[in-house]
């Protein structure tokens, strides 16, 4: 994957990131069903969006079959993949890459299970509130997302003034861009809070997710190591995860994955951010082990 432009103008790559989808197959948990043999619900979820954004469509489909009708009025539904409850506050693309242990180097051979469509089980009862944040209100997702947007702004500039001084109209528009999956609505506002030159940023907002654990590393990485040397994917991973990334240039033990693609270690982080950030302003990078 090569990054050709440092311009903040709309780019092919940014649009490609926006358009990435994970096809989902949603199965209603047997203990939620009134009847046997309910067909699954299929939907294409976008990688940069969040699970709760699809709940009203999913529940509307299953509503005639629910054992507990009152549940259809409640926002607090949850999904599991192979028994693991899915964190609704993490973007769907990140969840998929991390939990399926995605290895993009595998060819299209029959042995490799891409887990597509991604099969998830839908529940209402026994919400795992020891594992998942509460989803008890309609504004829960927006609140979590906004907290990350604020943090990312702070990381970029050393203060969150750009986000804090957005008008209510702009702030609502940016969120509407996420909720409606509207590229222009989102990016027209997002551009206002990003400095034109990514190399003027204090730090790059980045979260690194480790495999087979809930461990997430919050790293503060500046755009440049020195006036002559940019921080790349490789130099940042080597600095923060030296045991997994003993080399700055070659993946020996593990690989960084973003939006389903293995990141080239030579990519400058500042440019990667501007082309491939998630809607909350972060690069959410997951680490997969080389088998």
């Amino acid at each position, binding site marked *: 994957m090569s990054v050709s432009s440092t311009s903040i103008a709309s780019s092919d790559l940014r649009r490609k990131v926006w358009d990435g989808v994970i096809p989902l197959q949603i199965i209603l948990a047997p203990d939620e069903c009134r009847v046997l043999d309910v067909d699954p619900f299929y939907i294409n979820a976008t990688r940069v969006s969040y699970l709760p954004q699809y709940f009203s469509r999913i529940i509307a489909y299953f509503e005639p079959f629910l054992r507990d009708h009152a549940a259809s009025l409640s926002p607090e539904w949850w999904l599991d993949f192979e028994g693991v409850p899915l964190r609704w506050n993490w973007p769907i693309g990140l969840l998929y890459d991390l939990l399926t242990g995605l290895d993009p180097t595998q060819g299209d051979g029959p042995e490799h299970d891409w887990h597509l469509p991604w099969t998830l089980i839908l529940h209402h009862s026994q919400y795992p509130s020891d*594992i998942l944040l509460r989803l008890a209100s309609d504004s829960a997702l927006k609140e979590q997302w906004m907290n990350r947007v604020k*943090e990312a702004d*702070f990381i970029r500039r050393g203060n969150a003034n750009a986000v*804090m001084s*957005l008008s209510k109209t702009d702030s609502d528009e940016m969120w509407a861009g996420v909720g409606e999956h509207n590229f222009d609505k989102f990016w027209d506002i997002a551009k206002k809070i990003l400095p034109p030159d990514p190399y003027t940023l204090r730090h790059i907002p980045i979260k690194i997710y480790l495999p087979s654990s809930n461990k997430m590393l*919050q790293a503060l990485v500046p755009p440049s190591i020195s006036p002559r040397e940019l921080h790349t994917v490789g130099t940042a991973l080597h600095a923060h995860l030296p045991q997994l990334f003993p080399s700055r240039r070659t993946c020996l033990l593990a690989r960084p994955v973003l939006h389903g693609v293995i990141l080239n270690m030579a990519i400058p982080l500042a440019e990667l951010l501007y082309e491939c950030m998630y809607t909350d302003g972060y690069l959410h990078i997951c680490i997969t082990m080389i088998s």
Partner: protein
Amino acid sequence: MTRSSASGRTTANYAKLNFPFLTPAEFSEACESFLPRLHHSGITSRLLPSTEKDLFDGIETTTVREHHNVSVTTKAFVLLSPIYSLPVLYFSSTYANLHTGESTPITLVEDVYKYVVANPSQISILREPTIPAVSWSGAISQCEHPLYHDLLCFYIHPCRTSDVMNTLNEDPEIPGITLQSYLALWIGVFGPTVGIAVRE
């Protein structure tokens, strides 16, 4: 603005250059200085050891509050935010029915205000919404615990911390803030949320 300091080493340099931001080493030193103040105020507390040698990740306190028919136990964590380079107060609470002894974790912000926070309207850090254009539950949000990744907890939004500490630093009635006094002043602002008050 210069500050005099009894020890004359890190604290004097610190107060001049970085205030109110803290490096992990400075925060660790501030925690070590603060712990005896907590013990002196009768608050159960301990230092959290770090994987980094000779450093501490923060402080954990345990407080109990009896409210109506329940006993509310709160574990609070004073941790350094890697994003803000400022202390952040995280906490998790359970309430136990005094008759049955049955214990339930608190996971809704409404219940935090109901059981954990005494007199929220009198705690200034909780009063204003954190983004002027948007209003919701206010200054407390649920989150994944930054150290213990399988735990959920709450935190008080730290975005006003910098302003708050600068205001304290400019207060003529408060002696110059050093690493030794930093957290005792900070807890004065954030601590009342979870019932922590430190004696003079």
